[in-house]
């Protein structure tokens, strides 16, 4: 299995060059929200290990919100973030990226502080690495190559079935399965279809993964006497905060909302980037850390492939602290419109949403960390829309395919490669076609 990994770099933009940077980034698009995958600056489409990537200027319009706590807003530098999700090791990918598109990347990063044409690009990028505190991968091990091969398989099967529809319709599932299997075999031997074998899982990754799997629960176990002692105080403190923390959920600015809409829904998948400040105080910081570490652990070791709780529409997601521990960004790639994304989240995973976002300033009031909050859906949606920032450049390696499409194609492929299935399994498999 080839595990996926993410990269993200964060660099402060030289203010005088912000306009130039925006123009540069915009030159990579062929229309609002639609990147040209073969653009001169960074031809994303040439990298067959790259799932998603984006450039975003972290223009956080909500830094003033700390005033509700009597704090004076800080002036943060304006950051440029470049992030992506790849098959295999991220550093190896960045090496290849620099080799092919070093010049373009150099032009982009030259608009940031601390970069000069003589800088070693890879060293500079690693130096500006912004690691995720929590990350989600829809289907660990499924590579871009596999996705494309399985999409081609689906396409080939569809065409074959359409041509033989009348002959196939009455066939018992087992016979149909056998017929389609032999079709795929002949296509493979004719070189028209490829279904590559899984690569071996890197040993280093296996060890690290195992350590992580055992390590975190072990740490919690060791600390448990302390945690149990601290729990009542923590609960009292949290409940107090939940009752007193102010809500800041004004209606999102109409123009801001329209600017976001302009770059959305050009594909069946959309990007999402939301940023905000954390509520002040240690309790909120610890809660954030604990919740996100748990999310990360669950996403890595517990969730079923293709599902985050009941949600099946997220390809990749991550939570990242922005330069320190005061502000945070959440980035995801999800299927459908933003309204159905919110709907899914509120109605299916409201508890997780509350736990992970309620530590942000102004979030609708929660109770016991997981209750209420986003159930005040109108407030929640305005809150999130207000914290969402337009993404300047967004790339997806498989336009037109949703995570559910990918799951269907994988299931079809698995069925093709299985020599024996029960009657029920065969019937379910035929229903996928």
């Amino acid at each position, binding site marked *: 299995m080839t595990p996926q990994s993410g990269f993200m770099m964060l660099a402060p933009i030289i203010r005088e060059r912000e306009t130039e940077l925006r123009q540069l980034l915009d030159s990579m698009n062929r229309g609002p929200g639609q990147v040209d995958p073969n653009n001169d600056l960074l031809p994303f489409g040439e990298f067959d290990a790259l799932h998603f990537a984006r450039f975003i200027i972290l223009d956080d319009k909500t830094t003033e919100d700390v005033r509700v706590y009597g704090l004076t807003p800080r002036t943060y530098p304006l950051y440029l973030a470049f992030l992506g999700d790849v098959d295999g090791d991220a550093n190896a990918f960045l090496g290849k990226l620099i080799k092919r598109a070093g010049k373009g990347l150099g032009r982009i990063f030259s608009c940031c502080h601390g970069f000069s044409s003589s800088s070693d690009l890879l060293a500079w990028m690693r130096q500006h690495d912004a690691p995720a505190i929590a990350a989600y991968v829809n289907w660990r091990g499924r590579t871009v190559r596999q996705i494309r091969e399985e999409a081609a398989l689906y396409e080939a099967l569809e065409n074959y079935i359409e041509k033989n529809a009348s002959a196939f319709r009455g066939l018992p599932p087992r016979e149909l399965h056998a017929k389609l299997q032999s079709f795929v075999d002949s296509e493979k031997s004719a070189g028209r279809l490829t279904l590559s074998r899984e690569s071996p899982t890197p040993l280093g990754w296996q060890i690290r993964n195992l350590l992580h799997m055992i390590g975190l629960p072990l740490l919690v176990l060791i600390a448990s006497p302390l945690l149990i002692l601290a729990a009542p105080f923590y609960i009292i403190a949290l409940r107090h905060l939940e009752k007193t923390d102010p809500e800041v959920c004004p209606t999102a600015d109409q123009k801001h909302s329209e600017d976001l809409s302009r770059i959305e829904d050009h594909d069946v998948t959309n990007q999402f980037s939301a940023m905000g400040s954390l509520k002040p105080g240690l309790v909120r910081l610890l809660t954030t850390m604990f919740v996100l570490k748990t999310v990360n652990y669950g996403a890595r070791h517990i969730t*079923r492939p293709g599902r985050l709780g009941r949600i099946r529409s997220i390809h990749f997601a991550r939570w990242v602290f922005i330069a320190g521990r005061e502000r945070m960004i959440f980035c995801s790639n999800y299927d*459908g419109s933003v309204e*159905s994304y919110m709907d899914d989240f509120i109605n299916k995973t409201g508890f997780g949403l509350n736990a992970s976002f309620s530590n942000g300033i102004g979030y609708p009031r929660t109770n016991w960390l997981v209750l209420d909050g986003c159930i005040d859906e109108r407030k929640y949606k305005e809150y999130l829309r207000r914290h969402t920032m337009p993404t300047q450049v967004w790339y997806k390696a498989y336009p*037109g395919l949703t995570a559910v499409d990918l799951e*269907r194609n994988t299931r079809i492929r698995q069925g093709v490669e299985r020599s024996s299935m029960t009657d029920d399994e065969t019937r379910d498999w035929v229903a996928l076609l």
Partner: protein
Amino acid sequence: MSQVDYADVQGLLRFGYGHMTSASYALVRVKSATAAKAWLRSAPVTTAVAQKPPPKTAMNIAFTAPGLEALGVTPSVIAAFSHEFRGGMAQQSRARQLGDIGHNAPSNWKWGRHKDEPHAVVMFFAEPEQFSSFVETAKGDIWSEAFEHDVTWLDTSNLDGDEPFGFADGISQPQIDWEQQLARPCTQLGYTNIVALGEFLLGYRNEYGKITDRPLLEPDAASAGLLDAEDTPAKKDLGRNGTYLVMRQLEQDVRGFWKFLYEQAVGNLTEAAKLGAKMVGRRLGGDPLVPIQAESIPGIDPNTVKQNQFTYEADPLGAGCPFGAHVRRTNPRNSDFPGRPFSALRKLVIMLGFGPKAFYDDLTSSVRFHRILRRGREYGSELLPEEAIEPPPPNESPRGLHFICLNANILRQFEFLQNAWIANTKFSGLTRESDPLLGNRAPISGCPATGNFTMPGKGTLPRRVSGLRQFVTVKGGAYFFLPSLRALRYFAETGTEARKSK
């Protein structure tokens, strides 16, 4: 919790005025705000108070955002209405989300184009013999002074409960919880047809147990006539007892539809009707494709049990009624959880993602947050299937539906339905197909056509029809606010106070 004052609610919320078989909708633009307001003050607006015998005429009024502006409503008040209402249906990004591209694009519309929206819709209903005299009386002398003379009149026709393709329509409507008996919020384990009042009327609790945003005004002389906001009693609620009204002119290519079915059925009209029924999800007469269940469903009108007492619970693979069928897309009749988990533990297991794991399980959102109240009427003449497959006479007049729906949250109700369920080519695990009736068949990235329709079988290969044409074209549309009678008076008085005090 206060009872609804029906005298403050426009009648369309409670009644479809079915016995008033003549109806026409006037799309007007304000010529003189003063005259328009004078007309509004005297306009015979029908309320939701039940009358015996039922009235023979009715009139209701709703305004677009530019319309409120034209009446002189303060910008800060307009800014407190929802984003969708203010932005309008024809905005480019919104049009893309709603599937209004290609032939459906607002630039091709007959009315409602961006920056050319109507200001208001005045809906007239009457029994046929009263209709024209009622319209004349209701308009009065001041109408021509109030509104531009080029009013767009959307006439309707009475097709005896069928829509133009020939299928019985309007069978399923949500039952509004007028008495606010339902405890909210709660988790719903089984499908129910009773929907919270706040989903259809602003100022009341919705399915989340919350009150949807709407303009709340400072108490002053102008707002004195409005009711207090239930959740913020210090403010006056301009939205209370009002709602949003969505209007779309949907032109139906009845001949194209039946010709396609007829070709697919190789010249057999009975088979064509069967295929049509699969696409609609109901037979011509309105019978559903899955059996009526013995167990009753809360909120199903006793008169429609034979056509409405069903869910798709026993049809998880769509072998009876395809997932993609129009009525299954637009009302999947599901609940908050798949498979009715009665224990808390089971619920938790599902919430954490360890519930049903088959491919098609749990792919559709819970319907109770996405219900709409339909109030549309057809236009054009009746055309039977056997006539539809014949060549058309020259200069045939168009047929279609003046779609109207009422909802308190356009984004979560109408727009979600239209975007995620109707236009979505990836609905419920399907691909390359949108709603078989309403879809625009436009290509999506990586897929040149989206004209499929899939009919799953019982353990056999699904039957797939491809090359569906666009049978319905959007010809116009707008978002309106259907105010309460108190809010209507507020609009009619707006600005006049200020003028007096000057």
